[in-house]
């Protein structure tokens, strides 16, 4: 052995787990949504000017604020330091709903089935995984939009928005459904 010392440096990630947070507030009117958006813009500006007043793990330039109709969306990567955002969203105008999602996704999920099958009968005919997936989608999102094809098939379509459920070709809906291995299924984000 020699006296040579080996210095090994480790870099650790912050111990807290962070996610892409998306907060969506729905207001009664477009005007209310506009007020909330303006207040959120002011909040971000205030964070830039008075960083000592905030206890967050994100900087204002990392955040995104947008409004569409009567909805305001705020998105940022954080371990959940959103108290100031929630405060502004809830008191500037009275929201009808405020929902917070982690790794928010909007997906169109389709499955091609033989014509004539209803969601109920489809569950009897299909394999267990597909049946369970249709059950989950119908219970979680609602009755699918059904489009009749000319080829003796029909397509069920669900539009999903919420917490992340789809990655690596797999739908995580209480169980792992490897949807990319199914020719009759498709997921588009």
């Amino acid at each position: 052995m020699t006296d040579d010392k080996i210095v090994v440096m480790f870099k650790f990630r912050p111990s807290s787990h962070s996610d892409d947070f998306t907060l969506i507030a729905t207001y009664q009117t477009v005007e209310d949504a506009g007020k909330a958006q303006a207040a959120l813009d002011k909040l971000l500006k205030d964070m830039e000017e008075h960083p000592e007043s905030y206890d967050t793990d994100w900087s204002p330039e990392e955040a995104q604020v947008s409004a569409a109709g009567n909805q305001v969306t705020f998105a940022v990567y954080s371990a959940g330091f959103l108290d100031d955002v929630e405060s502004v969203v809830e008191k500037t105008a009275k929201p009808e709903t405020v929902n917070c999602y982690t790794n928010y996704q909007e997906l169109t999920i389709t499955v091609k089935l033989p014509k004539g099958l209803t969601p109920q009968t489809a569950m009897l005919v299909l394999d267990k995984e597909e049946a369970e997936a249709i059950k989950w989608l119908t219970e979680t999102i609602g009755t699918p939009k059904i489009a009749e094809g000319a080829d003796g098939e029909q397509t069920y379509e669900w539009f999903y928005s919420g917490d992340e459920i789809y990655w690596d070709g797999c739908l995580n809906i209480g169980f792992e459904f490897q949807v990319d291995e199914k020719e009759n299924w498709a997921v588009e984000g």
Partner: protein
Amino acid sequence: MSSLTEKAAQNNAEALLIEVARMILEELQKREEAVQRIVSQLAISEVEYKRAITAEVVKGIAIEAHYAFLPNAPCTPSIVKDKALRVLLKKLGRDQRIYGAT
């Protein structure tokens, strides 16, 4: 730590949080003019605003309040109250600037 000690710590922490909430309401009372100016720009009433900001402050010190009564406590009730006041001033300052009430 025995379950009795833990229970006592929890009860004391809850009592401290109530005390802090009362203290915050008193502090807001002292700053009534600023509160009125903020509320005039909001969609919620003065009572709702005071309740909301008190909840924000209490949430901000809840963990310290719990630790303040555990054996070898890293902080004391007095330190927790001081922090609560600092958090209140930060939140109030934020709202004064955002709602143009400075």
